[in-house]
């Protein structure tokens, strides 16, 4: 189910519907500053519909900030400024008049730090569903079970859905947040280190999930686990700090990046890390 009216609204300045050759997301010279500090400079990246793109790179080089631009979470950070060109299916993502709510329904985000609401597990999942207009109880319960199963959490929590989400272990919270983002069936899913708090088994569950989502969902995943990037991604982009400003030094298919890197930085990074 693609949220049709949301798409309709987003398209306000009507543009040519992107064909398969046109990338779903298109970034050109995107820069991000917090106050006077520029942290991301001149990022250009194309993301095709239905692909999985891994963003890798050292800590603090602007990966999270870039994801934040894609669903306009940056709006919530005071003094944060984004420039450049950023389009989703042709629509200008940096347009100040854009309907950000519709955008965020299409573009889900899973945060680096799990952030469940301080309510019960069930209520955490019920809320977005009700917000999306699912009024009846049964379809909500069904969706909740489906998504919890998808992240491998159902068996662990099905008997305590009414307990506080805050009492879950770190990994459980993370998976709860993934499940929550899946509920709305987003068109694009941004995942900021979704497996960082997960053990290998849960991590594998999430990776399998990513695989199964691919058909109906475009995924951008930030990961520090290069092996994981190789396993799940089609394309890969390496962010790097240059003079204190993050940018993309190389991008390409996973094969290219890991086996035939053009830049020395990339070569060193994937080598050093894989070793």
């Amino acid at each position, binding site marked *: 189910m693609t949220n049709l009216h949301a798409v309709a609204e987003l398209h306000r300045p009507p543009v040519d519907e992107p064909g398969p050759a046109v990338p779903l997301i298109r970034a050109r010279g995107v820069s991000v500053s917090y106050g006077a500090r520029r942290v991301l400079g001149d990022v250009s990246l194309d993301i095709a519909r239905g692909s999985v793109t891994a963003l890798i790179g050292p800590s603090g080089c602007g990966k999270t900030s870039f994801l934040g631009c894609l669903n306009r979470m940056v709006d919530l950070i005071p003094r944060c400024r984004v420039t450049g060109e950023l389009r989703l299916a042709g629509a200008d993502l940096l347009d100040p008049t854009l309907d950000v709510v519709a955008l965020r329904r299409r573009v889900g985000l899973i945060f680096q730090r799990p952030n469940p*609401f301080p309510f019960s597990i069930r209520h955490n999942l019920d809320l*977005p569903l009700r*917000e999306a207009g699912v009024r009846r109880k049964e379809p909500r319960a069904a969706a909740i079970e489906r998504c919890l199963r998808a992240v491998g959490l159902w068996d662990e929590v099905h008997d305590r859905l009414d307990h506080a989400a*805050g009492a879950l272990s770190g990994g459980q919270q993370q998976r709860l947040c993934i499940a929550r983002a899946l509920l709305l069936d987003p068109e694009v899913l941004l995942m900021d280190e979704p497996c960082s708090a997960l053990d290998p088994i849960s991590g594998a569950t999430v990776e399998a999930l990513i695989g199964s989502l691919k058909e109906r969902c475009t995924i951008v995943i930030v990961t520090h686990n290069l092996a994981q990037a190789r396993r799940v991604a089609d394309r890969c982009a390496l962010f790097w700090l240059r003079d204190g400003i993050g940018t993309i030094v190389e991008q390409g298919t996973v094969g290219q990046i890991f086996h035939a890197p053009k830049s020395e930085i990339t070569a060193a990074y994937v080598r050093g890390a894989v070793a």
Partner: protein
Amino acid sequence: MTSISSRRPAERLFVTGLGLCGAAASLTIVAVIGVTTVEATPALSVAGPQAFLTDDGWFPLSGRFGLMPMILGTVLVSLGGLALAGPMGIVSAVFCNHYAPAAVATAYRLLLKALAGIPSVVYGLWGLVTLVPLIAAWAPPGASLLAGILVLALMILPTVAVVADSAIQQLPPALHRGGAALGMRRHTIAFRVVVPAARSGLATALVLALGRALGETMALLMVTGNLVQYPSSLFDPVRTLAANIALEMAYAQDIHRSALFVSGLVLALLVAAALVVAEVLAPDGTRHVD
């Protein structure tokens, strides 16, 4: 479980100090209630406690001590005021945090804080000179339960709003971001995520405001009409317990004076009853998880 005592002298001293603070704070109420009780004793022993509930009419000089209409009046005015100011205060807090541009929010906060410190006599004068005549033109005598509720609502609104605002401001921003990332609309985030997450702070705001409402004297004295009767509509005058004390204390002597202290004691009981209800309705919130 948390061990309260500690072996470290500095810490022990600190905890002792805190204990003393707590003891002093709770002693205050013991002292206030104690003084009130001592002063109320003559009337209670002469008339008997039940007289204050069952007597018909309040004519202490003629030995009639019925407080029931005033108890009802106090409850109605306070609950009415709270019913208006509670939601408005919470909405004000939401407004400051999620709707208003920063400058507007700052100005509005400042305004609320000023509102909280205007003497009640000024509210009373305003109500008496502007609000009561308006109501009187419509449904005489004007000085009424309704006037009391409106003036009281305006007076306690800042208490609710300021305390609720600081409770909401304290929530982790991850909460708001989490909601936004799920494509929730602003009002859903505000009223279904933020407000419930701040519920313990909001409960505090309401309790404080209720206390202020029950104890409010001068403003109500000027606008409620102070008639000792059971109101049959919003436009009927009522007298509150606090107004009763202020109205008559100046000329009261002996049993009359003592009976006024019974009003104070009854008010304390009323607050206690309200707290019991509040505790049953809204059990203590827990600490926020971050």
